[in-house]
């Protein structure tokens, strides 16, 4: 069966093959892990950017400037090929980081730079009276941040973070250049040997579309639960993060 000289049967046969599944799984692991550390880094650097001491502020600013200002692919190649060449011991564990670890590392640091700006905007969206009220009750800055400010910042932070997650799903394909066998690399190896470029790009794209679609649905659900105007609209329950941050904890 051919249409446009494309072998649709071949696509159907391989769409759910083991190697494809492994690639999808690797893409998901890469994205989820990098996103997690990206959020952690973003929060930490956002707090630095908002610090009063200018050297601390400068570190936050320099981080964003550098990692947002250079291409992600350059950063990936840098961490994996360039840095070990001039500084073999840079990875504290035996001087060698696996492609996966380096991939997560590169993606997380890059993502952290974007998350820094998102977190900063979120924290700044919270009325300054909130920090003062928290302090007047005897809370220290870290406690007030964690219990009072960050939970409120979430409302502003969640929508762009969802967008970042979806962008990261796609950008994770760039770590194929350091031979992490994620979805795109799987497809690339297959089209290189079979020369069925179109078929393999369709297979990869269908999976990327599936992942980003599911991601968007989850994003919409989270936004409806925690997004703007959600306080007091009966959002009950609450996961670990919500509980930890003291959001809507049932009294």
């Amino acid at each position, binding site marked *: 069966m051919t249409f446009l000289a494309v072998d649709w049967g071949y696509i159907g046969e391989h769409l759910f093959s083991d190697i494809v599944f492994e690639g999808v799984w690797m893409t998901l692991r890469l994205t989820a892990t990098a996103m997690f550390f990206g959020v952690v880094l973003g929060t930490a650097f956002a707090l630095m950017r908002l610090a009063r001491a200018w050297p601390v502020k400068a570190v936050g600013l320099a981080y964003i400037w550098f990692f947002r200002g250079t291409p992600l692919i350059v950063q990936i190649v840098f961490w994996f090929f360039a840095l070990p060449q001039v500084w073999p011991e840079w990875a504290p564990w035996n001087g060698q980081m696996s492609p996966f670890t380096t991939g997560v590392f590169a993606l997380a640091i890059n993502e952290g730079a974007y998350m820094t700006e998102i977190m900063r905007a979120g924290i700044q969206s919270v009325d300054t*009276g909130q920090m003062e*009220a928290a*302090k*007047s*009750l*005897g809370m220290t800055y870290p406690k007030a941040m964690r219990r009072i400010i960050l939970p*409120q910042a979430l409302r502003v932070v969640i929508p762009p973070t969802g967008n970042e997650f979806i962008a990261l799903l796609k950008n994770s394909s760039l770590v194929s250049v350091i031979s992490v066998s994620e979805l795109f690399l799987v497809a690339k190896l297959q089209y290189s040997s079979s020369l069925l470029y179109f078929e393999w790009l369709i297979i990869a794209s269908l999976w990327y579309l599936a992942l980003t679609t599911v991601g968007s649905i989850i994003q919409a659900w989270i936004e409806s639960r925690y997004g703007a105007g959600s306080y*007091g609209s009966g959002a009950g329950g609450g996961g670990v993060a919500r509980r930890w941050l003291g959001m*809507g904890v049932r*009294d």
Partner: protein
Amino acid sequence: MTDSQPGTGNAPLLDVIDVHKRFGKLEVLRGITMPVAHGEVVAILGPSGSGKSTLLRCINHLEKIDGGRILFEGKLVGYREVDGKLKEEREGSIARMRAQMGMVFQRFNLFPHLTALGNVMEAPVQVLGKSRDEARETAVATLTRVGLASKLHVYPAQLSGGQQQRVAIARALAMNPKLMLFDEATSALDPELVGEVLAVMRDLAAEGMTMLAVTHEMGFAREAAHRVVFMDEGVIQEEAPPAEFFGAPKTERARNFLRRVTQT
């Protein structure tokens, strides 16, 4: 409660001594001295921009001071003395001192992501380390005291201004403070809601709470306060018992001020 008779204790609970505060070139507090005894209720009056809020914020160390000192129970607020110089205190001990003073803001500043009960329980659990059960018990009692027993599980957005401010007062009271600071607690309220908040403040005053209340409510100052402090341009222009202040103000500024506020 004879020993809480205002003015008769030995050391004041709060002692503000020659405090100066500048914002850039603008000197907002220009040598404020004001001892406050245990159980005393002080109403702070003054025109807009006279530095009333700034004074309260300095007492709570939400603002640093540029001169003088503030003592709470004989201990420096926000600073420690090193070789005769004041150095800012560590955050933890500033927080411990703030935990003993309650502050009520003009704009309530309730935590919108927590229910009324959650707002009142938060600091006892997070700051005093109380168990949730114990904190809940106190919080329910405190909210009942301000007349909000039926609003425990309601979020701030669904409360009226007067109710929100009463939650804010309960939130401060749940910490069992030794001193309560009110910064125009009723100024952001619709006229018909002012009364319910003032009633709570009067009750507190009657129960012997030490209070420092910046207010534009002359009725409250006249009836609930032991002393009126009139500020203008960063200086205490005049202070006297309310009967004396309202009956025979000594300074021209105070007379002008009273004429203006009683007109409206």
